[in-house]
């Protein structure tokens, strides 16, 4: 077996299994409705009819994979990208807030980590608050953030970015505290023997040593930022973004629309994580830190 095939085969097997289970579930979950309709119209259903109809409903309980694929394709390629029905447009709205929130969260996480590593008072006081911030359900916080910002006349990107940052600063903080503390006693002794200042120690030793940890955290953080943004798009009747698409889909029973938006979000997250992974590989290889 050639190596690429060996790598891809397990993935394809799992994917195939999921698709098969999904089709089975779609038939099973949509069947009651189809049977009802048939009984009301007093028509007889063959098994073939039943299966065909369960997979082609306009508002199925669970849409079949091909319906979601069609919905996704329609949303991405079937519209002008400026259209309010375009998933590309909604995706961009979500992506821009995600990236802004990710940037804010990363900077905040790094700064807090630097403070914790260099300042005893911060070392003992910041972490419990950071942990507490993550135990508050984001679903409860998000509407308040949106409302508070809206009352100040600020809508759209910034409030969503704040919610995204709320979720994404934490993994960066934890990873960077660990990363900045990786240099061992010998490395620190060497720096001390050269009479290096704390700033020199930071820029030349601690920061470069922490990069593998930073990248691992960034992957978690960007996925968290996307979740935060989508949650931020749910309340207050947002009209743009993948979250709004999810919400309006559920208002009107447009299950295909919900699932399309869900998959669009999943694909977006996967692409973002992969991009950071590529950046990680490039940087660490250049620095001789690749494992």
């Amino acid at each position, binding site marked *: 077996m050639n190596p690429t095939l060996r790598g891809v085969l397990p993935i394809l097997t799992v994917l195939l299994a999921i698709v098969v289970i999904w089709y089975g579930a779609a038939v099973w979950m949509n069947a009651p409705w189809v049977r009802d309709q048939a009984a009301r119209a007093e028509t007889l259903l063959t098994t073939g009819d039943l299966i065909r109809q369960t997979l082609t409903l306009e508002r199925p309980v669970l849409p079949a994979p091909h319906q979601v694929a069609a919905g996704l394709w329609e949303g991405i390629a079937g519209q002008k990208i400026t259209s309010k029905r375009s998933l590309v447009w909604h995706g961009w709205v979500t992506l821009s807030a995600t990236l802004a929130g990710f940037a804010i969260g990363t900077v905040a996480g790094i700064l807090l980590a630097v403070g914790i590593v260099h300042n005893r008072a911060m070392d003992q006081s910041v972490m419990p608050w950071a942990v507490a911030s993550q135990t508050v359900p984001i679903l409860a916080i998000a509407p308040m953030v949106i409302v508070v910002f809206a009352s100040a006349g600020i809508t759209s990107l910034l409030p969503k970015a704040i919610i995204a940052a709320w979720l994404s600063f934490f993994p960066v903080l934890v990873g960077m505290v660990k990363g900045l503390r990786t240099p061992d006693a010998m490395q620190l*002794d060497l720096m001390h023997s*050269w*009479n*290096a200042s704390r700033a*020199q120690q930071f820029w*030349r030793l601690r920061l470069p040593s922490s990069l593998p940890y930073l990248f691992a955290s960034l992957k978690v953080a960007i996925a968290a930022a996307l979740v935060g943004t989508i949650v931020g798009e749910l309340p207050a009747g947002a009209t743009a973004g993948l979250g709004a698409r999810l919400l309006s889909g559920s208002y009107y029973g447009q299950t295909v629309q919900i699932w399309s938006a869900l998959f669009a979000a999943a694909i977006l997250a996967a692409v973002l994580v992969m991009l950071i992974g590529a950046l990680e590989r490039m940087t660490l290889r250049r620095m001789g830190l690749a494992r």
Partner: protein
Amino acid sequence: MQVARRSETAIAAKSISLTFPTADGPVHALKDISLAINRGDFVSFIGPSGCGKTTFLRTIAALETPTGGTLSVNGMTPDAARKARAYGYVFQAPGLYPWRTIAGNISLPLEIMGFSRSDRAQRIARVLDLVDLTGFGGKYPWQLSGGMQQRASIARALAFDADILLMDEPFGALDEIVRDRLNEALLDLWKKTGKTIGFVTHSIPEAVYLSTKIVVMSPRPGRITRVIDSPLPRERPLEIRDTPEFIALAQQVREGLREGHSYD
């Protein structure tokens, strides 16, 4: 010049002690250590683990602070000497930064100490030559063997012209063949530079081959049991290890180690 400085004392310790408080009561890492090291000496510290040889080296480097006694390095307190760049320290592991080239690693202390770019380049070239690594400046640490990496770390310790070189089992992690070669190279380097060298080891032949003065230590509490001045000439080919003088000296060190080893 070297001859004129020979009689000067580089490191003077008077009844140094160092006690760590632990949950099981105080641990005497060093007790009543008195020793004078002359400029240009090559001093080895030998003894079983826990005898305080590394700790004593670290007090000279101001990486540990004695709890009693007085210690002077170049006529200053160890901490003042550290700030005056009196010593270069070589650890058992090379501790090179993987993200810097060999030249970049040697440049690191020079950057921290504020040497100019052109001065740095000159010094890097000089110390690379001194440890026989000319041409390897552009390589990354992982491209070099363990022995070469340790030579690079010695070059790094030499780059800023400290006149004391402190080495804590620098060749402990290397195999014997490489170790022999590096010992020879180290003697050569010592001859060329006239540095004062403090060298921690637990190999008797290594200590005897390299040193002008051998300090035998023993544990619990860490103390000096014997100080042996080597009668061997400064010029030492590897073959010297088969001479009767060498073997007699090794015997003396071994006795010193046995003496300090108590089971009570």
